[in-house]
């Protein structure tokens, strides 16, 4: 079966088992390794992508269901010269540690800040229920996110 989908505004074609999880299509076939497969059960958020603008867990999306869909990955939300507001806040506050959770964190929270003005800490934490971090203990990530002004989010 041949599936055609748009990834980061570029048409890509996948020919293979349509039940293949999107995360594996991205990582193995398209060699876009920024999206991480960590838990493969939808709990950790490291595999988050946007499908037609909505953050979803790519480990649980069979690629066959996405024929014609528009997918954005971590590679597509910024350029090397210009990070988006969430990424910039994380860099400015020097919160990154091992880094494996951050692509998924960026995908979830970039969308969150587009649709939520001036969230408080509890709202941010609730939005992060599906993004686990094993290194940082979260609070410095929240500090960085609290510093974002919503009109600066560009993703």
């Amino acid at each position: 079966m041949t599936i055609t989908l748009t990834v980061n505004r570029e048409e890509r074609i996948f020919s293979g088992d349509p039940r293949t999880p999107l995360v594996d299509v991205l990582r193995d076939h398209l060699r876009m390794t920024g999206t991480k497969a960590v838990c493969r059960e939808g709990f950790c958020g490291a595999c988050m992508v946007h499908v037609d603008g909505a953050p979803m867990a790519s480990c649980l999306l069979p690629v066959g269901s996405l024929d014609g869909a528009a997918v954005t990955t971590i590679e597509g939300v910024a350029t090397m010269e210009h990070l988006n507001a969430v990424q910039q806040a994380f860099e400015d506050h020097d919160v990154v540690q091992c880094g494996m959770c951050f692509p998924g964190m960026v995908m979830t929270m970039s969308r969150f800040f587009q649709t939520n003005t001036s969230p408080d800490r509890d709202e941010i934490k609730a939005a992060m229920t599906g993004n686990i971090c094993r290194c940082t203990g979260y609070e410095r990530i929240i500090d960085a996110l609290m510093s974002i002004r919503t009109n600066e989010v560009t993703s």
Partner: protein
Amino acid sequence: MQNNADAAVMNFPRRDARDKLLGRTKYTIDVGGSEVIHAVLLRAEVASAQVLRLDVEAARSMPGVRAIATWEDAPGAHGIGIADHPIFARDVIRYHGEPIAAIAAETLEQAHAAAQAITLELAPLPAVLTMAQALEKDAPLVHPDWKDYDILFEGAARGGNVAWEATVARGDTDAAFDRPDVTIVDGVYRVGRQSHVPFEPRAVVAAFEDGRHHIQTSTQVPWTVRHVTARVLNIPESQVRVTVPAVGGGFGLKFDCSLEPYAAILAKKSGRVVSLVNSRREEQMTCLCRENAEIRIRSAVTADGEIVGREATVLMDCGAYGGEQVFLTTMTAHTLGGNYRLGSVRLSSRAIYTNTPPNGAFRACNGVYNTFALERHTDEICDAIGMDRMEFRCRNVVGDQDIGATGQIFEGNVLRPMIDRMQALCAKHPNGRENGQRLDDGRIYGRAMTVGTWFIFVGPSAATVNLNVDGSATLVTSGVEIGSGSMMHALPQIVAAGLGIAPEQVIVKTADTDAAGRDLGVGGGRTTVSIGAASAAACDEVRDKLLAVASEMLQTAPEQLVLADGRVEIRGRPGSGTTIQKVVAEAETRTGPISGSGAFTAPGIEAMPGCAAGHFIDAIDIPVFAVHDCELAIDPDTGQVEILAYRVVQDVGRALNHRAIHGQIQGGVVQGMGYALHEEITINDQGCFDQTGFEAYRLPLAQDVVPIEFDLFEGAPSCGPLGTKGAGEVPILNVGATIGCAIANATGKQVSQLPLTPPRVLALLDGRDEPLALDHISAVWSNNTLRR
């Protein structure tokens, strides 16, 4: 080292953040492409069995298969202290998940299909799944041939299912317990395993190039991987090269060689580049966990609160092979036997074989549960003699010239002033609440403060610094960046300060055993201290060479020259000197490029002779102390525990990067909260874990945590560079203890076990279970040793 300690202190941002945020960083799991083939391990699905037949012929001819490996390809056994561990099961299976064969094929699916085609005939054998079972008279032996194993380190007692026994005996505890003026307090404690769950699982990519193995691996210990791979393959170590890409978390899981030898064998056999990655399920089910343990402590205490005698036995489950637990028997003395002055002490630490997955090292290792047991016991002593918990600790914590369990003499008063600092920190937020008080929502309030002792794992490290013609410097070590940031913060800061250049000008080479000297590995505070010290020594040599040349150029004695801002200046006359670039250019015409090398190893503090047997480290060179305070609320309807506030005073020697240490404290305490309240591993009667993934193994999420308030205690004696101690490991040390004691204080119940999950807390509140009993640990201490 020139006096530039202050120049090294800064919140230097880490340079790898941007690529990580963009998803550009290539971890070992990201190495791939069409030239890479994929390997899987065939793992045992029973805990204990005899292998009657293993036949891989059918698998060999399956589509896409390029190589298969079994025990025949890896004749050697490895281990710590004892060489008890073959990498493949041969005649016998000892644990659920033990590798039996390794298969490499063009695709992962083909490798899995081939694994299914392997014929494996087993005859079940009896299994010991708990330490109590393992210690029974006539228990089946996990290693019937234990007597024949190579001993790699002398001095311990071994026998039967006791893989390793380390003991401490200082003074006369019998006399102490016989005193008429003492109260004897006896307690038992039990803890379960904890799984690291680094987001990047263990992963390796191996190739065979120019007659040598090149192993790219997600590891904390490139030299251990080199050594163990060579040993089990029975080849010279020089035939193995290990390089390390960015590591997606370690926490100690990657402090051992694990998947690398399988990939190495398959790469040589197939002639291809082989990738082997643990699935998350495999990673959970064969994790080298923080071990489960059972502890009995018995203390004789006077009415004044003097501890005149202490005896303890710690049973440490090493699983089917000794591994790290053999080494960690050493750390009971310095943790359970630490914190407090002891008149006399006897300790028995026993690593016990069971037919379960082997355990390993996890951030502060057995220090975490030893501190839990010790601080629970300490509070129980306070209750027994009617002394305030704070007063007891203030009286008894070790200070300057006090003697440790193995007789070492401590330098400096550290713990006592740290307790004062904690009280000052707490005084900023007085709330007048009492233990056991009901809050407005009906929850029960609890609070506790604990102290802890850990150590910096000093040991051999080497570094080379190459001074480049553009004024930058390249630092070559075997250090690995596992996420904590010491390769990104402390090391460039130390080198920059040593050479008077900006930290942005320090290039930190990623680990390559072909490039740098031997190193014990990253973990236990080693990067900042051991690798940092080696780097500082290398800078000294570079500095001497640089100033020798500059001295001639500037016609000034080297003692009158300083390095600052990328220049060599005459002391007291800024602008008078020249740039480092000019000096380097001049040096290259005279003698050649400038570089320096440095090394560091344990200075070797002395223990009292005869105190410690079977110990790898008799006395700790750099102790690290911690004081934690916790306030929590318990829901009496559900047993859920919410942390209301958590405070840390940590002994850091000197804080090189305050922001980075904050990150380690926040992260380490949260891992400790997981250990104390959420993360549970249960082993079923098949000898395998019930918790196989993220659904059942519950890591703390964002809503489960609070911001940690902290105060960094500086100035304690340390032979680390610039007086530093490592700060990344110890934040987890006291968390189980502090939360356990706060729950005990809140409820008035006997808290003896971790994790304190909601069902366990509710059972405590309801008085549902019998108090913990560990009948297989004798009240007579000597009965818990092999050498009676």
